[in-house]
């Protein structure tokens, strides 16, 4: 009896967590795909006789998002510590919002003579070791969401430092490492809009002095450069 009651509770909690809660936050609207969806939403509503604008629709959706958060806090709040401790939960999208404004990660290195060499270009081109590393799912998770972000994610900068230091430590000839995204606008066949050239974003150029403290941990000293980690962030 006790087991069946506990299982009932588990099924209820996980079942309601999995519901498609409309958790829209203002920062979600900064993405190009969100703006496209708003535009289509306004058109659809117009077709059924509901007149609204993109801004009004966004405000309404944000209000729904805030309400949704409040309800979830009441429903799931007591169980959050258990979910956090076990790293469990139910939030599944599986490409719920495929991004037509995707980012193409590109890594280049500069030699002592100043020449730049492309080392990685998504998807899958470049040095085999670099390709394997950057396409490993856990590494990809740090950067794959940054292409269309107005501001790169916090861990993106850390990843750039780490990757830059890793390359600089392994290759003494390399002077600088450049990591960037090229914003790709994916157009469907028949799309009459003019092609949009790829636009560089979140360009990070890492030299030895930038990551001296990381290089020191890897056994390489950089004279006249700070040797401790910058005191920031989570």
């Amino acid at each position, binding site marked *: *009896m006790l*087991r*069946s009651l506990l*299982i009932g509770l*588990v*099924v209820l909690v*996980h079942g309601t967590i*999995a519901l*498609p809660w409309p958790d829209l936050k203002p920062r979600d609207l900064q993405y190009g*795909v969100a703006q*496209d*969806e708003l535009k*289509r939403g306004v058109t659809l509503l117009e077709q059924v006789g509901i007149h609204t604008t993109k801004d009004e629709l966004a405000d309404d959706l944000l209000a729904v998002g805030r309400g949704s958060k409040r309800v979830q806090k009441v429903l799931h709040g007591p169980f959050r510590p258990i979910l956090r*401790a*076990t*790293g*469990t939960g*139910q*939030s*599944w*999208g*599986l*490409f*719920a*919002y*495929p*991004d*037509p404004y*995707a*980012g193409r*990660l590109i890594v280049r290195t500069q030699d002592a003579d100043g020449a730049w060499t492309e080392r990685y270009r*998504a*998807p*899958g081109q470049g040095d085999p070791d670099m390709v394997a590393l950057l*396409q*490993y*799912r*856990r*590494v*990809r*998770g*740090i*950067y*794959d969401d940054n*292409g269309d972000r107005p501001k790169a*994610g916090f*861990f993106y900068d*850390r*990843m750039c430092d*780490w990757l830059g230091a890793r390359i600089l430590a392994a290759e003494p000839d390399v002077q600088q490492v450049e990591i960037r995204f090229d914003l*790709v606008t*994916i157009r*469907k*066949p028949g799309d009459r809009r003019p092609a949009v050239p790829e636009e560089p974003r979140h360009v990070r150029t890492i030299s030895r002095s930038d990551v001296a403290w*990381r290089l020191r*941990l*890897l056994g390489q000293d950089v004279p006249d450069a700070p040797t*401790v*980690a910058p005191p920031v962030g*989570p």
Partner: protein
Amino acid sequence: MMRLLRWWVGLWDRREAGTSLALVRILLGMVVLIDLLQIVRFDLAVPFFAPLEHGGLAAILDRPTVPWLYRWFEPGPGLAWGALWVAIGAAACTVLGLGTRVAVPLLLALLAVLSLPVPPADRGIDMLVRNALLVLSFSRCGAALSLDALVLRRRLVPDVLVPSWPRYLLGLQLVVLYTAAGMNKVATLWLPPDWSALFVAMRDPAFGRIDYTALLDGPLFHLTRALTAVTWTWEWAALVLPLLWWWRDTPDRGGRLRTWSNRVNLLWWYLLIGGLFHLGTHLTMRLGIFPFAVMSLYPAAAHPDELARLWRRVVGRLRPAV
């Protein structure tokens, strides 16, 4: 009401052979093991699991709540590598079924705590893996196809019955995963008349195996649209799984639909389409362990007796050929 309550209590009190759960344990353990070995291969233990000042990506020690691993042990590269290797050992023991009662919860605890330093490196599929490990922790998934069984009972498939409820929960996890994914797909790209979601996802440089620009701009575009519709429908169709299980569980009740569904094995067809879908996405896109981790739960969708029958049929067909 009392009848329903009795049915509910009885449902979670059932017992069965342990092979379905054992298969989930083995397959899921293998996926986790291979994934953790990738971290070794790419030398990522320190960046992912050590604090910032020791070369990690996260200032884990500066957070308001420092995870237990970093409070109980001396943080640094040694702890990062040590925790990783213990997790690898626990995953190997999970696969082999060695000390399963300890290995599975230990693996869960380590995967949970190691997910905290760099949250973006922890994907949805990691949560699914931990959900499954949590259920397996309370199950007797080591009762069959394990070294534990071989040592304690001298047989790989001993004649013991284990509680069925963990298998039911893992089956429900599949239902929740697919249905929720279907429900969340409200972007217009997933809906008619657009149906370009797969096209866009495959063209995303972070996920495409190759640059599909030239390939997909032709007639194949319409194939991706058809597959988008199939994917969306198939995910929603997971809602029917509990009904299919109930029908398979109660064949004597009769009814045309029940009889037909059981005769044509609708459940197996659903899983077969799922398998093809996951293999297809694996071959065309870079999704890491996702397809394999999800498919590792598939044995939970089948009663162990059904798996045994399937096994006997396969072996029976292979034997004359041998």
